[in-house]
């Protein structure tokens, strides 16, 4: 340690002194002794390698982009194999004439009911449209600008959401058990 501190006294003045302890060599500021074992890699090879890598990536990208995107297959429309492989066939019992008669009459009644329902719906649509047209006509006679505003489309209409009616109203004071819902949908990747 004492030698270090008195280095400035016994060294010849021609040798440049170390400015601070951060300067690791006696050479000038920019040069330094090679610390690594192997010589420094040439810059050309690096650039070439990088370019080649970029080209490969671009080629891959082009190939992937060429393939058209596919729609996710819908599981509803694929019949499971177990239903098509089995050989068992259902044999229906023979119907008595009264039973078949009853069924035919029931079918006729159902057809009539559905026809009445459909006609009622068509009538309702017609009535709605007619009353709307009449109201618009009256409005036009009243004031032109209100009519124009009414004709324009309503931005607040969409998105429109509605839950279907339920069979029974919700039970008052029902305490549901604790639990959780896991999403196990199969994820398809291209």
């Amino acid at each position, binding site marked *: 340690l004492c030698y270090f501190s008195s280095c400035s006294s016994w060294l010849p003045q021609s040798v440049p002194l170390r400015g601070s302890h951060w300067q690791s060599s006696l050479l000038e500021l920019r040069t330094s002794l090679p610390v690594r074992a192997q010589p420094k890699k040439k810059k050309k090879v690096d650039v070439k390698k990088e370019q080649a890598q970029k080209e490969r990536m671009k080629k891959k990208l082009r190939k992937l982009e060429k393939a058209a995107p596919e729609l*996710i297959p819908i599981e509803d429309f694929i019949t499971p194999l177990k239903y098509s492989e089995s050989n068992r066939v259902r044999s229906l019992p023979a119907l008595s004439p009264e039973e078949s008669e009853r069924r035919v009459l029931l079918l006729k009644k159902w057809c009539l009911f559905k026809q009445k329902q459909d006609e009622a719906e068509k009538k309702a649509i017609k009535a709605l449209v007619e009353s709307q047209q009449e109201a618009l006509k009256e409005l036009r006679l009243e004031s032109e600008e209100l009519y124009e505003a009414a004709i*324009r489309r309503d931005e607040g209409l969409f998105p429109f959401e509605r839950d279907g009616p339920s069979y029974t109203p919700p039970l008052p004071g029902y305490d549901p058990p604790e639990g959780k819902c896991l999403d196990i*949908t199969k994820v398809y990747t291209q």
Partner: protein
Amino acid sequence: DALLGCHRSYRSRPTHGIGKFKYLLPKEVPKKRKEKVQMKEIDAGTEHQYGDVNIQMTSYDLCLVEHFAQYVHRLCNRLSIRVNESYAMPTKTNEVLFMEEKGSKMQLDAVLTTHQRVVQIRGLSSTFAPILLEIIQSSQPEGVHLLVKQHTEADFKSRLKSRPELEELLAEMS
């Protein structure tokens, strides 16, 4: 030269059509090229008309939602509203677990499948839209959730398969 280069067919001669044989081979059906799934242009609509509108019906019951979608499609046909597409969205499966009363283990209650059908219409006039909504609501069956909204690109993209490799490469490139 003149004899070889002659293309006249002597129609009156009995040798007319000699050498033809393609009419004897069975008819070849032209190869069906796979149509690329491309997004159709989304109509924005004018002031008095809504553009592309999606009527989405969701339910746990498959038959019910299918029949309701068919009903809506037929209704639009009857009211001469142009129907662009009528497709099904991929089904979602959910596992419902609940905690037992006298235990700490989760027990499997049921596996529910959620089905969704979409009917896409175009050119719905602004005066007729509320009437159509009213009719659809009045015939909405139990358990079927109705959602009517404008069609966007995101809706179309949700139908396609995800491509993680492409996305990775794109992230690396930029």
